[in-house]
């Protein structure tokens, strides 16, 4: 895990009890985690005018929050364990108490951050649900006495890229639906076998 010099400097500053009181440290850390878990338009900025930050220049607060955020992201990205996290923070002059505090907060947010990072990148639209409708076809203007079931199937799609996430609907006869279900079942069976290996 590598961090830029700016980030390292920010972390070292954050570790310094002379600059950041325990309360100020907690506030910066909270803001860093919040800014990652909230959507961009509601991102939490540390309250610069908050009383806990009274004696700290705003540019330092910003620098420290950015550094903490970078560190959190890198840690989640590389799935580092407690030992590695502690070593890294100790190298940045974090004391035991602050390292402990960091680890507790990190544990709380790790899972949601992993999901967040997992969803970054290009993937095909994700099928999230399926709905269906059954009709019995009687006749058309071209053909009488057709008498057959006809299904309308809709796949609900989700995609990070909203332009792609258009639901797919299609018609199918009973045989075609059986074919579709058969193939999906094959896939499910394959999945089950693989998971047992």
């Amino acid at each position, binding site marked *: 895990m590598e961090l830029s010099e700016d980030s390292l400097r920010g972390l070292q500053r954050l570790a310094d009890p002379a600059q950041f009181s325990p309360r100020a440290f907690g506030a910066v850390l909270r803001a860093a985690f919040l800014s990652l878990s909230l959507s961009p338009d509601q991102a939490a900025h540390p309250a610069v005018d908050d009383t806990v930050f009274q004696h700290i220049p705003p540019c330092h607060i910003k620098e420290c929050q950015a550094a903490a955020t970078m560190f959190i992201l890198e840690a989640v990205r*590389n799935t580092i364990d407690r030992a590695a996290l502690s070593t890294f923070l100790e190298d940045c002059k974090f004391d035991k108490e602050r390292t402990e505090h960091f680890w507790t907060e990190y544990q709380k947010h790790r899972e949601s951050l992993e999901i967040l990072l997992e969803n*970054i990148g290009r993937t095909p639209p994700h099928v999230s649900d399926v709905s269906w409708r059954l009709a019995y076809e009687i006749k058309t203007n071209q053909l009488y006495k057709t008498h057959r079931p006809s299904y309308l199937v809709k796949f609900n799609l989700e995609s990070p890229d909203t332009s792609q996430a258009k639901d797919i609907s299609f018609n199918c006869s009973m045989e075609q639906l059986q074919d579709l279900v058969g193939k999906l079942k094959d896939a499910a069976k394959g999945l089950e076998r693989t998971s047992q290996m």
Partner: protein
Amino acid sequence: MRPEPLHAQTPVRRHVEASVHESERCWKEDMNGGFSTRCRGQHLLVALSPARSVWYPVGTRAAHVCRTCATLMLTLLESLGRIAVEFLRKGSNPKVYEGAARKLEVSSTTVQQAVEGLTYLLSESSKLLISDIDFQDSVLVLGFSEELNKVLLQLYLEHRKEIRRILSELQPNLPHYHNLEWRLDVQLASRSLRHQIKPTVTMKLHLEENSELKTSVLQTDPATLIHMIQELEQALAEMKTNHCRRIVRNIK
């Protein structure tokens, strides 16, 4: 041009008669420049060309054209029947008319009319899925010999299934299921997150619309896959419920 008054009312006969009246009215309107789209839609038969886009009129000529056939010999009817079936498969082919016309020593227009008449008879009968007896009743009024009628019946029975298949392609075209391919993946890492274990099912869904294939690549997770299977199995099972069976039994 008008057929004889029809005595027994069988479905095809009724339809042919109605078509003839309507088409004549349409032609008259056409002369006056008032050919309405409604008439065009209802009383023109789709020429079943591969492109499925050529429309041509046959209504007026249907009955009288079949009479033209009566003047031809039995074997000729068989060959015309073949041409008619070919017509239904591939669309009209003027060259075939000319070739047949030379052999038969009649004008190619006569051959064309005869083929179109037969085509109409075959496609209309297949569309309505009439029984043997109804078909025989319907052609009886055309005044052919018994043998010719038998040949026509044979032609109808032989090609009914195929013609119905061709007609079914003319239905309003919605995207239709064609095939599904799948692949199992486990996502292991990405730029933004190392060390993942994320099982995914990637699917390629082939849909058919206007005889063109369209594919979409989709992805899902195991839990959703199981859910999809359950839902779609319920859809299939629904057809076997008493409610559906009762409806199906009663629509005959």
